[in-house]
């Protein structure tokens, strides 16, 4: 009679992609629990939930969105440095479509009323969002074409748009930071339906990405391309189209993130929106355990990675670290987390578990 395997095995747990991100996130929350009194308090106001934990989730939604797209790109063995710039482009397009008068030489006489009116928008909201997202998708397609069909190294190909993109965004708004007064647009980033509205957007995008990659073969194709593009090609996977899809989806995610970010600060700030967010997103994916060289990925782990980054930021603010000094601490934490991830440390943890288990 065969011995029944224990359903819980230490090895299985440590090998899960979610294990290390969850441990790291738990450590951050533990730190908050000890150091910041009342960090876990959640208030209910007018049926909506508020609190530091909700803040982490809400403020992390931009990076979460980017991380979802970035995960797929990194899983194909590439990287997309342009997401921050694409965010700025999408935000600029949206703001311009809602209020093109700001740029006009001939100003309408009732301008002051128009741009202060919370119900004024030049084009209906759905067209604004649609056009902004289409522009973002075009940006993603451009990256995908350069990487997959022209065969330029991903880091270089996307660096082009990273450098030029912010210039393009400023070109679109003519360098003006367009203030967004339109209330329904502000709801994207600032609205609450029990939970922050942006969280539902993250959930929706996550669900789409998850269904796309885990309920169809696309996820496996992506991993296969990331592990070995050539052998995937020979086994009949159209690796170029898979890469194109990944970059396009990443562009779309960046576009959505740009809308969320701009509605959050109610401005199309071409210069600052998404600044260094590409780095945060890549970091989130790496913390989520996806290798930069491509291959297996976990979308959920990447989102937890984004929460970890936001958790560090939020808890440092809660402790009272000044905003600028935060960067230094973030850098140190990143190095620690990554050292924790290195094979040496992982091996150590596993051996420790095996010894205990035996």
């Amino acid at each position: 009679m065969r011995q029944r395997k224990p359903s819980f095995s230490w090895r299985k747990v440590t090998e899960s992609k979610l294990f290390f991100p969850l441990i790291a996130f738990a450590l951050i929350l533990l730190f908050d629990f000890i150091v910041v009194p009342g960090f876990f308090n959640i208030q209910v106001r007018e049926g909506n939930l508020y609190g530091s934990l909700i803040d982490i989730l809400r403020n992390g939604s931009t990076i979460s969105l980017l991380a979802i797209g970035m995960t797929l790109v990194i899983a194909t063995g590439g990287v997309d440095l342009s997401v921050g710039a694409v965010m700025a482009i999408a935000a600029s397009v949206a703001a311009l479509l809602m209020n093109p008068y700001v740029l006009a030489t001939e100003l309408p006489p009732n301008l002051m009323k128009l741009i202060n009116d919370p119900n004024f928008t030049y084009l209906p909201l759905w067209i604004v969002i649609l056009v902004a997202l289409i522009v973002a998708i075009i940006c993603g397609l451009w990256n995908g074409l350069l990487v997959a069909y022209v065969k330029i190294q991903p880091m270089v190909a996307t660096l082009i748009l990273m450098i030029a993109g912010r210039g393009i965004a400023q070109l679109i708004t003519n360098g003006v930071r367009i203030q967004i007064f339109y209330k329904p647009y502000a709801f994207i980033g600032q609205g609450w339906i029990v939970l922050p509205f942006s969280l539902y957007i993250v959930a929706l995008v996550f669900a789409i990405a998850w269904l796309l990659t885990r309920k169809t073969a696309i996820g496996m194709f992506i991993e296969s391309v990331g592990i070995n593009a050539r052998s995937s090609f020979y086994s009949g996977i159209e690796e170029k189209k898979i890469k194109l899809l990944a970059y396009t989806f990443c562009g779309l995610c960046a576009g959505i993130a740009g809308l969320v970010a701009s509605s959050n600060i109610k401005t199309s700030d071409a210069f600052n929106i998404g600044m260094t967010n590409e780095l945060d997103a890549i970091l989130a994916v790496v913390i989520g355990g996806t290798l930069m060289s491509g291959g297996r990925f976990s979308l959920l782990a990447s989102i937890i990675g984004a929460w970890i980054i936001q958790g560090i930021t939020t808890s440092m603010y809660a402790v009272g670290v000044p905003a600028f000094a935060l960067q230094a601490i973030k850098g140190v934490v990143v190095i620690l987390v990554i050292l924790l991830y290195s094979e040496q440390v992982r091996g150590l943890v596993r051996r420790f578990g095996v010894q205990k288990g035996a």
Partner: protein
Amino acid sequence: MRRGYGPNRGLFSIEDVAAALGKLGDLFPSYQRFIPLTATAVLALTAYGVGAIFYPAMRDPQVFINIFRNNAYLLISAVGMTLVILTGGIDLSVSGMMALAGVASAALLREGWNAWAVILLILAMGMAFGATVGSIIAYTKVQPFIATLAGMWVARGLCFFISDDAIAIRDRTFHILGATKILIPGLSDPSAKQGDFVSIFVVVSFIVLAAAMYLTHYRRFGRTVYAIGGNEGRNEQSARLMGLPVNSTKVLVYTFNGFCSALAGIALAVNVMSGHGLYANGAELDVIASVVMGGTALSGGVGYVFGTLFGVFILGVTQTLIQFNGTLSSWWTRIVIGLLMLMFIGVQSLLAARKRGRGQAAAREDGARTSAAMRRRRLLILGGSGAIVALGIGVIAISLTRGPAGGETADTTSTPGSGRCELKPFRQDQAEIAVETGAVIAYERNGGPNCIDELYFIYPDGRIVGDDGVNKVEKQATPAEVDTLLAGIKELGWFTDEMYNTWHTPCKQCFGYYVTVSYDDQIKTVKGVDGGTDAPADYLVVISLLKAIVPGFTAVP
């Protein structure tokens, strides 16, 4: 390659020189490797030449030299970055290190340290920082991208531990370092101490360049660098198996880059005579772009340190052209650089494809199919590059036709200031008096490509008076308009404690603004420059609201 690497060699020997000459000769047949470099050089000089045709002021040799003066720090940093990229790595921490070097030296000088001791200490700090990052990359196999990113955050964050504000440098030695003019023989008159000159850091940057060229092309160290990065970084394992000191070389390369960024930071600090944690924001992109435009492949192992000089030069020419044009806004620099990068990368990948294609054709029978695919790709790349060049020329042509009516006349009347306006002191006292006598808003705008200086006062009854620097302007708006304007400004939170007087370093091409608003028994004043990052978020919105009501406003000044 085999020659001249015997044990126990002196630093220089006849053999060395002979080997060097021989190597130069060896390199010529494989001229293909020089194509990206030559392309950059030709393009840079052509761009400058075209500029000189359209803008007579650019024919002044000093303008040419200024490109190196303004970008000396970029060149120093780019040289270090070239080595890092040759090993197949990347270093994002350079801009952080530059800012840290500037702030740290400014802080130490404020404490009364000796300037030379400060410089040595800062350089040592840069090297230690580089060595740390390099060790993490070499020994724990962390991706260079991630490790140096963390390094950038640490360095930039440390700046703000030292000081939140910009620290001015008043040290005499630093002043001498910045102000010394080294006259160029042949272009100057030494007895009159006049003529064209370079600054000390231009010389320093060229010394760094020469040193790096010697290190990479004539020393074992350089050979190892190329070996690690070769074959798109896949050679690292082979290099290790060959017994090359891969790890220590990597650490050395990052240490050298740390040294270069610290030196660049000092050059920058001397240039602006102050240090602040926000300086050199995003400079790593410029540095990487220069290296790529200089013909070094980001995948590693391909390129020349010398090419980086042209990469930096082309960046400088782009900036200069945009400044001289005057109608193009500063963000065009970014777009042009992006397009240029695309072109260079296209050329590079074309060359790589040709090389690969040749290898395959020799090895295989089905060369016909490969070459067909290759021809298609070549067509694509050539077509793409052609389209980009056409686009670039188109943009320049359009901007020229749109340029200040008759570029020639505009240039001759305001040559010294053309595109290089320094901001004038704001006329604050005038504004204060006006506000005391009942004006609700005082709004000043100066600088910009055409060196304007406008000051307007808006009164609650809708009266707007002011001058555009020369003529008096008057306009009558309705009191309701003024009320809406004030309400709009209040909506933005200007009459809360968040708003404060702010000031940051002026940039070329920017407009400086000075706005005083008197409302609700409070007076708020904000000074700022457009295009900056640290102005309050709503500040430029107020400017755009103001522009709507103030007379004589046109979108393109």
